[in-house]
């Protein structure tokens, strides 16, 4: 086991280390190649897991276009002033210590029959196993009038980075008594409780800075949403009268958004905000779709629930948000859990490691107030060809303040843990 072997090497030194190093060198020439596209919680975790659980056994290449990863998770707390922007950003440099090669480029083409991908610089990478973890794409056009250009005026901030900062700047500019409009997406999308945590954190920012007269309207594409009773209760208690949620049965559907006047036209009425945050519908990242790994009908990538292997190619695994992962929500926690399952299957394929039943788990914490977090989650197993929920839990309404405060601490611990799972122990 990795933990023990590392410690052994460190403590034993000398002869022991030499003995263990020799076969490593011999193996180096014939090490199987694993190429991973996308360095989010899915891709980065699979790289580090393989490197740690099977030291020196693979040649691992992680292809990620950005040099720094900005976490979406935690970004709502940045809006609220409860985290700074830099705390959301993480470098891949620690992965070199584990022998992982990281290439900061965009992967463009895949020739799956020859098992080779091509990067934007024309670099070709051949693989024995390919992991595709590109996250989601936003379907701008499904919100009439919205497009990448309009997002510079009405941010989505559903991909973290410049958009997140833009949203924060616009929130800072909202004056007391003014309006904020959030357009929330249809299922499935990444982070089901995310839009409602965002509304909570915006209300916190406004109220705690003397702008409690501002109003937030959520125009939803859904009739109900994740942890709804908990959010509604929290909004009533912490931000009375500030947040209004309207399902499609009330607003009648989004007809047009206008980035210049920052107006959203629905069947019911026109909603104008100083800040309009549009979160469009989503599907698997374009890379997965261009490489024919997605179901054209749903836009998500079908996978074997035992292994996260693509249903369309034996040598490819799709994990994280891009995968059609049955009952599992699209979250960083799920992505991390799926990464471990894919790593086990890859080790079984290429090293003859034992095949092990997957252990799939998720918890999503959401912050309602500075001292108030709730959680939802569960355990999943492959059943009848699908990842199926077998145990679940959710915070209770009316919980003790101490329980909610403790959940804030839990989510902070989780953040540091997941970041260490992606970028190495030094990153947390």
């Amino acid at each position, binding site marked *: *086991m990795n933990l023990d072997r590392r410690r052994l090497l460190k403590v034993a030194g000398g002869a022991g280390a030499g003995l263990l190093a020799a076969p490593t060198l011999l193996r180096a020439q014939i090490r199987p190649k694993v190429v991973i596209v996308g360095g989010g919680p899915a891709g980065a975790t699979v790289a580090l897991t393989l490197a740690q*659980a099977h030291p020196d056994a693979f040649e691992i290449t992680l292809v990620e276009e950005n040099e720094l990863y900005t976490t979406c998770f935690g970004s709502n707390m940045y809006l609220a002033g409860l985290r700074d922007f830099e705390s959301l950003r993480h470098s891949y440099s620690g992965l070199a210590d584990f022998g992982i090669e990281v290439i900061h480029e965009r992967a463009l083409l895949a020739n799956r029959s020859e098992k080779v991908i091509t990067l934007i610089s024309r670099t070709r990478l051949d693989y024995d196993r390919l992991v595709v973890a590109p996250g989601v794409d936003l379907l701008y056009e499904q919100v009439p009038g919205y497009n990448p250009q309009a997002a510079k005026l009405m941010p989505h901030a559903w991909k973290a980075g410049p958009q997140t900062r833009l949203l924060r700047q616009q929130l800072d500019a909202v004056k007391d008594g003014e309006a904020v409009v959030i357009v929330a997406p249809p299922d499935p999308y990444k982070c089901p409780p995310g839009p409602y945590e965002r509304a909570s954190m915006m209300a916190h920012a406004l109220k705690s800075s003397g702008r409690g007269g501002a109003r937030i309207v959520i125009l939803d594409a859904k009739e109900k949403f994740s942890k709804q009773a908990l959010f509604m209760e929290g909004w009533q208690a912490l931000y009375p009268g500030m947040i209004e949620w309207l399902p499609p049965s009330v607003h009648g559907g989004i007809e047009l958004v206008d980035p210049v006047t920052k107006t959203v036209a629905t069947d019911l009425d026109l909603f104008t905000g100083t800040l309009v945050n549009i979160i469009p519908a989503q599907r698997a990242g374009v890379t997965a779709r261009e490489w024919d790994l997605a179901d054209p009908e749903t836009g998500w990538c079908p996978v074997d629930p035992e292994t996260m292997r693509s249903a369309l190619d034996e040598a490819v695994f799709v994990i994280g948000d891009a995968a059609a992962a049955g009952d599992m929500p699209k979250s960083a926690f799920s992505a991390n859990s799926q990464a471990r399952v894919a790593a086990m299957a890859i080790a079984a394929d290429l090293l003859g490691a034992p095949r092990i039943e997957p252990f799939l788990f998720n918890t999503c914490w959401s912050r309602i107030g500075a001292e108030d977090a709730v959680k939802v989650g569960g355990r999943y197993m492959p059943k009848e060809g699908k990842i199926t929920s077998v145990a679940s839990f959710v915070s209770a309404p009316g919980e003790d303040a101490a329980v909610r405060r403790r959940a804030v601490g839990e989510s902070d611990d989780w953040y540091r843990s997941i970041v260490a799972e992606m970028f190495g122990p030094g990153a947390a």
Partner: protein
Amino acid sequence: MAKPLRAALAAALLMCLCGAAAADERESTRLTYLAGTCNACHGSSITIPALAGRPAPETAAALRAWRDGSRVNPIMNAVAGGLDDDAIDGLADLFAHAEPIAGEARP
């Protein structure tokens, strides 16, 4: 853990050497990956209790109590519900001998 760190580490090392030799490969691979699930939350502990260095009987007893519901913690009840006896004992042992992560709260 009242033992001085150096002695504890040496003892842990010995046990790992024997343990690793004896352990069946399947079980050790399974435990490595299961431990990853634990680390997804317990990897950097302030509020969530640290696992590294915690005596094995203590961890095993807690996991059994969560599995049978006699101790209530919604997350841990859902996790432990998926662990068999071998996994519980194996994980408890693994973490008892793991190096504490720097700066982490001691159990």
